[in-house]
């Protein structure tokens, strides 16, 4: 069906000429004198709102003011979407004195757009984010094409909207909904956008022209704001709402770590009833935020993500994935790949875990808001395979069985002669060395590691592990596969614990040692949380699985030539008694009531945070020295996306660099004297500074 359609011409004209002196917009007038203005940033598939785009728009608005069309339509010439937001590359230039005046110029352009004496209509397909959304908000109408989404993700960059979004969105829709969107960074998809009143109409592409004509004729009704909007113009009502927002925000993004959402709340509290004042204050607040470390580091994280993503280019040549082992990891990997469109067979000798895997996949579909039909198709693609016949059909076989070298070797040998000619065998091992496993692989050149993190559906990172004999093309295909299933690949070499576990394990082990020393487990976890880790070490160990922690810990201890801490007694005891953490319902914590949330509002003993965090920095320096990864940025990105390492700190190496290598090594040496050799600084520090 799609094939047939691709041979028909596109009924919409997406290539009108550029107006004179303009490079980023195209424009044409139709026979009803409606001006169609199409954003088309050159040399890219995605529109971003740069200085040039705004300057060009200013030029065009000048032309239109001289020669009024009946209406102005603004849309994107890119098939992918409306516009992704501001050009983040330009943020770095905006930290100087000129930032305020640059922003004011941008505001002037959008004010000019908003003041046009004829109707302006934004037609949005795909995403309208950040500054793209702000342009759409400056129009009189927004027509959403099915699948459109609107959002302000600025908060994820340590910022809030800066091109008028903070006053235009609360003026358009229920202000509390508007604030929620800006505070959480969550976008509103088509029907939600219509319901909120962001879009005045939601149509399929084939009815865009008719909807535009209706809007141009003044017959497209806008949705009113309702009672709450009126109420929120009073200071008293806002104060009440603000109190709730503050406490909610503090829970997930404490002000010390993430100033942006709090600045936004302040902004609205003070100026919520006066759009002009809010506009002025928005500019000041945005410029201040740009200068914060949090924003700088979060923007850094954005680029780290881009860097990892850039490695996924190319074709994976993988249509069918065969996963061996329906344990927690195997089931999640299989479910996730099926969700992202791969045909998947999941093999296990027992039908029961296969059944559980299907149920788990259904749960993930629900969490990811798939429609009934999308869920059905994902589950159709995920085929339990009790006899393992999928191995002979698959382009990629992922082994995810327990960490027993003999078992893995036996499975690899059984695959020999069965797998397709150019199929890849990957292991999800987290603690065994690939160099050893490769000996039993049918073809070591087509054998590599594909190390996912738990839970796969939430953790964006996959370590793509090469051993000495892995073919380069195989690694390219595996990285492309990560892109195809919407995960970020980190190329690493075969090293004990690879990268992420090597860096993370000291955090977990030190947490357990502190527990052994008699500290309260909630205090220990609070120290990690206060630093900005997504979980304290003991909660995280439970989440990872204590058996896996033990495997990784022992493997590191036996294969690294370093004075690592002995495996804590308490870890062995827990694993022996079957309390393996979240998956068994009990580890250091009781998980029957969900994830434990220790109260962070307490005095952390001096030195405790450094004991937990600095060993991670030290391990990171060791990995860099050992060339486990290509460079420091890849390392920081991998640790952030693989562990959730406090993103606003920019990664373990970035953090160490900010604090100063001298200071960090001095503290490490002091701790080594006090607590043992495990803190002795790595020799890589001398070159790291």
């Amino acid at each position, binding site marked *: *069906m*799609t*094939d047939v359609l691709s041979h028909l011409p596109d009924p919409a004209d997406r290539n009108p000429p550029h107006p004179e002196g303009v490079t980023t917009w195209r424009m044409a007038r139709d026979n009803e004198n409606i001006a169609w203005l199409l954003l088309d940033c050159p040399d890219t598939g995605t529109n971003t709102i740069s200085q040039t785009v705004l300057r060009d728009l200013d030029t065009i608005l000048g032309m239109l003011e001289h020669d009024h069309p009946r209406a102005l339509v603004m849309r994107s010439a890119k098939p992918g979407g409306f516009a992704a937001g501001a050009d983040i590359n330009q943020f770095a230039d905006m930290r100087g004195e000129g930032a305020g005046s640059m922003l004011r110029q941008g505001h002037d352009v959008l004010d000019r757009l908003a003041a046009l004496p004829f109707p302006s209509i934004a037609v949005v397909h795909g995403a309208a984010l950040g500054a793209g959304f702000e342009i759409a908000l400056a129009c009189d109408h927004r027509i959403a094409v099915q699948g459109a989404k609107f959002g302000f993700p600025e908060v994820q960059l340590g910022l809030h909207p800066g091109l008028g979004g903070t006053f235009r969105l609360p003026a358009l829709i229920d202000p509390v909904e508007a604030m929620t969107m800006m505070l959480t960074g969550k976008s509103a998809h088509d029907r939600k956008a219509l319901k909120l009143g962001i879009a005045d109409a939601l149509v399929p592409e084939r009815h865009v022209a008719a909807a535009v004509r209706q809007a141009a004729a003044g017959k497209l009704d806008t949705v009113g704001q309702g009672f709450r909007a009126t109420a929120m113009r009073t200071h008293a009502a806002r104060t009440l709402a603000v109190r709730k927002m503050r406490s909610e925000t503090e829970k997930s993004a404490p002000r010390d770590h993430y100033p942006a959402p709090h600045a936004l709340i302040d902004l609205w509290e003070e100026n919520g009833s006066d759009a002009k004042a809010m506009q002025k204050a928005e500019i000041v607040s945005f410029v201040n935020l740009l200068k914060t470390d949090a924003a700088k580091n979060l923007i850094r994280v954005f680029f780290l993500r881009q860097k990892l993503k850039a490695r996924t280019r190319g074709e994976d040549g993988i249509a069918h994935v065969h996963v061996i082992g329906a344990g927690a990891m195997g089931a999640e990997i299989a479910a996730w790949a099926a969700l992202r469109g791969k*045909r998947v*067979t999941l093999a296990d000798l027992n*039908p*029961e875990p*296969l*059944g*559980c895997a*299907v*149920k*788990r996949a*259904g749960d993930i579909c629900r969490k990811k808001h798939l429609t009934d039909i999308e869920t*059905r*198709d994902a*589950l*159709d693609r995920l*085929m*339990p*395979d*009790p006899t393992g*016949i*999928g191995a002979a*059909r698959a382009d990629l076989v992922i082994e995810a069985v327990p960490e027993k070298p003999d078992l893995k070797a036996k499975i690899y040998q059984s695959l020999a002669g069965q797998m397709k000619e150019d199929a890849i065998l990957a292991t999800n091992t987290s603690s065994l060395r690939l160099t050893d496993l490769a000996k039993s692989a049918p073809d070591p050149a087509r054998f590599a590691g594909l190390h996912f993190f738990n839970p796969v559906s939430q953790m964006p990172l996959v370590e793509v592990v090469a051993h000495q004999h892995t073919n380069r093309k195989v690694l390219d295909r595996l990285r492309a596969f990560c892109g195809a299933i919407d995960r970020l690949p980190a190329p690493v070499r075969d090293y004990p614990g690879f990268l992420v576990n090597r860096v993370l394990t000291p955090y977990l082990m030190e947490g357990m040692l502190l527990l052994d020393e008699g500290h309260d487990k909630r205090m220990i976890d609070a120290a990690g949380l206060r630093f900005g880790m997504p979980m304290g070490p003991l909660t995280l160990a439970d989440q990872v699985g204590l058996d896996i922690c033990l495997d990784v810990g022992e493997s590191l201890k036996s294969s690294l030539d370093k004075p690592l801490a002995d495996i804590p007694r308490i870890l062995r005891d827990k694993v022996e008694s079957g309390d393996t953490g979240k998956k068994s319902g009990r580890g250091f914590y009781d998980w029957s009531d969900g994830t434990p949330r220790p109260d962070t509002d307490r005095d952390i003993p001096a030195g405790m945070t450094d004991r937990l965090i600095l060993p991670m920095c030290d391990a990171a320096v060791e990995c860099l020295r050992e060339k486990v990864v290509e460079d420091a940025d890849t390392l920081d990105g991998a640790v952030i996306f693989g562990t959730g390492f406090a993103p606003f700190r920019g990664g373990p190496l970035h953090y160490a660099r900010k604090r100063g290598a001298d200071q960090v090594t001095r503290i490490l040496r002091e701790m080594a004297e006090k607590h043992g050799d495990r803190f002795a600084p790595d020799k890589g520090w001398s070159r790291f500074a």
Partner: protein
Amino acid sequence: MTDRPVYLVDGARTPFLKVRSGPGPFTPVDLAVQAGRPLLLRQPFDRTAFDLCILGCVNVIADEMNPARVAALRLGLGEAMVAFTMQINCGSGMQSIDTAYRYIRDGSHNLILAGGTEALSHAPLVLRQEAVEWYAGMARAKGPLDTARRMAGLRPEFFKPVIGLERGLTDPITDLNMGQTAEVLAYRFGIDRTAADTYAMQSHHRLARAQREGWLSGEVMPAFDRDGTAHVKDDGVRPDSDMDSLAKLNPAFEKPYGKVTPGNSSQITDGASWVILASEQAVEAHGLTPLARIVDSQWAALDPSIMGLGPVLASQPILQRHDFGRDDIDLWEVNEAFAAQVLACLAAWEDETFCREVLGMDAPLGRIDRDRLNVDGGAISLGHPVGTSGNRIVLHLANALKRMNKTRGIATECIGGGQGGAMMLEVA
């Protein structure tokens, strides 16, 4: 035009799942997908290589109009796959094979996926006609007064829905329930309760043995539902079935004197089955190993009130065309709609007058050895998803011929409404 040989190369089905309370975990197309996925996975050819997909299904649900096409797309046979659904009641799953067989034999097609599916647990509740009219009137109501007036026409019995399944199992011409047609045959051929119960017990024992011995592996593929349950085998089987417990059951259709009980009738069940049919050309092109060759097929029709004799009327012309006698047929799969109905067919073949007057034979066919008939049980022990059974008996006949090292067999079924279908296979 010369007839081209047609091969049955492989097939698989879901476990048959007894309808317990409420709708089962799978819709008709869900079942077809569950059976089709593992079957397609083990083929050496690409799943878009089929020329056609045909699926038998009697109770189609509103969300799955033309279930064959929905199944074809969900199984990834490609957007270009032509697919149609067949309905000849209990013969639907065999009608799909027969149609595929004829297309390939005549040279227009080479590789066809032919199946049957039925989710009797999803058979709809039907609103009474009066209720439908009332509901339509409400929708047309003009203003609140009119609505109130029409509302007053509401009757409590409107909420007593008609069970669609019950109507589906009743013959619309004679108004006899299928079980009653079995009572008619039991009376006319003198089948007593003990004979029917003995037959039913053996059906359970035979299926239990086949499951135990692994004779169904490869044919029955596990199905996995969204609640995480793995369904691995036909779940209506009662391995410890005995005469005492069967004797305790009351007649199901004609109380109190009837002989047909829930114990000696087929079970109401959900399930799906597929077979792959291929021409010689397709066998060579894809390097396939055929299980069996389809040699002949036949449909027949008779008085709906004795529909249970359908197998006899449909099989006879095949035997005649090939000049085969009783001993030429190594194995029979006669669908077990009712024990009394199967036994009536056997009695008819032994009855001299019936064979002469009805079938035009010089002498009766004779007694068919129980060791050649339904060797691994049948619909009484594993259930009768109506659109599926015809497909299952052909598939199982092919597998049984192979396993037992036999040459030739006939799969045949009676069809509600007064018809019968039969298909003859030879091991390849």
